[in-house]
């Protein structure tokens, strides 16, 4: 926004109206799609449409389209770091080996000391590396 003057307020208002119409259509699509079973694709569809809608709001309603680039950099930075946060957490959780005691029955049973039997749960994590 290098100048505070607006060339054509009517054209500007028209752009906003169009943005609203597109946002409402996208809302109708996402609600409609939620009633159809696409399996795991439902999440992808819903989040893709949400991202589209969010981008429209940011670009047109929040004026990022014509704004100074620094504001767009800050906005994208926020989402970038959020993305990293989500990505690495889900990578961690998604690739964890299941360490529930259920999986460790065999090593626990082979333990010779009968006195160790009640302490299955604390002993389980210790037995895990040996299994791998």
């Amino acid at each position, binding site marked *: 926004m290098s100048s505070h003057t607006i060339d054509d307020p009517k054209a500007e*208002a028209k752009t906003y109206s169009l*943005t609203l119409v597109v946002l409402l259509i996208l*809302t109708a699509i996402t609600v409609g799609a939620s009633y159809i079973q696409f399996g795991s694709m439902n999440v992808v569809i819903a989040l893709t449409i949400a991202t589209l809608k969010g981008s429209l709001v940011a670009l047109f309603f*929040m004026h990022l389209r014509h704004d100074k680039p620094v504001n767009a950099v800050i906005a994208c930075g*926020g989402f970038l770091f959020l993305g990293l946060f989500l990505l690495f957490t*889900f990578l961690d959780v998604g690739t964890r080996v299941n360490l529930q005691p259920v999986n460790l029955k065999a090593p626990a049973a082979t333990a010779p000391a009968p006195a160790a039997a009640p302490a299955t749960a604390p002993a389980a994590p210790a037995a895990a590396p040996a299994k791998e």
Partner: protein
Amino acid sequence: MEQQFDTSKIGMWLFLATEVLTFGGLFLGFGLMQNRYPQEFVEAHEHLQRPLGTLNTVVLLVSSFTMVLAVLAARTNQPKKTVRYLLLTIACACIFLGVKYFEYSHKFEEGLLPGRFYSHHGDLLPGSHGYATFFAFYFMMTGLHGLHILAGIGLLSWIAVRAGRGEFSNAYYTPVDLVGLFWHLVDLIWIYLFPLYYLIT
């Protein structure tokens, strides 16, 4: 003036980035718990009324539209129009909260509450912590979002009073613009809350 406007705007965007991260943490927690209690979460989703969520989405989108028109009116020296659009935005915000109140009281009646307050009967997996966890996230996230709406109503009213006094013009409309940015962010967060809570099953 120009520089002051740009600086204020950068400050606002920095604040909005922290808001994104605040809600992002909650979204992450929600995602992890959905991973852990998939069946319970799908079942709990069914308790949310999709038509009401859709209605609120439309109301917020319209309010974003009236907000951006208010900013445009302020920039083009039309104080009366600015006030009118701000009042419309406030009206939309009140409708949103009204629908939320209706939804919340419905959940209270059915015992769909967070943590140890959860007392709903007839679940498929009775005794699972998944249901109470879902509603803990539901009330935390929509509640925090609702607080933002309340704060927004306060800010919008303040701006409307000042616009009524004729304080804003093409030369100075920074507060209108910044409150507008805040309001659009509240809308943007709902754009993600809505599909995650109401649509994904």
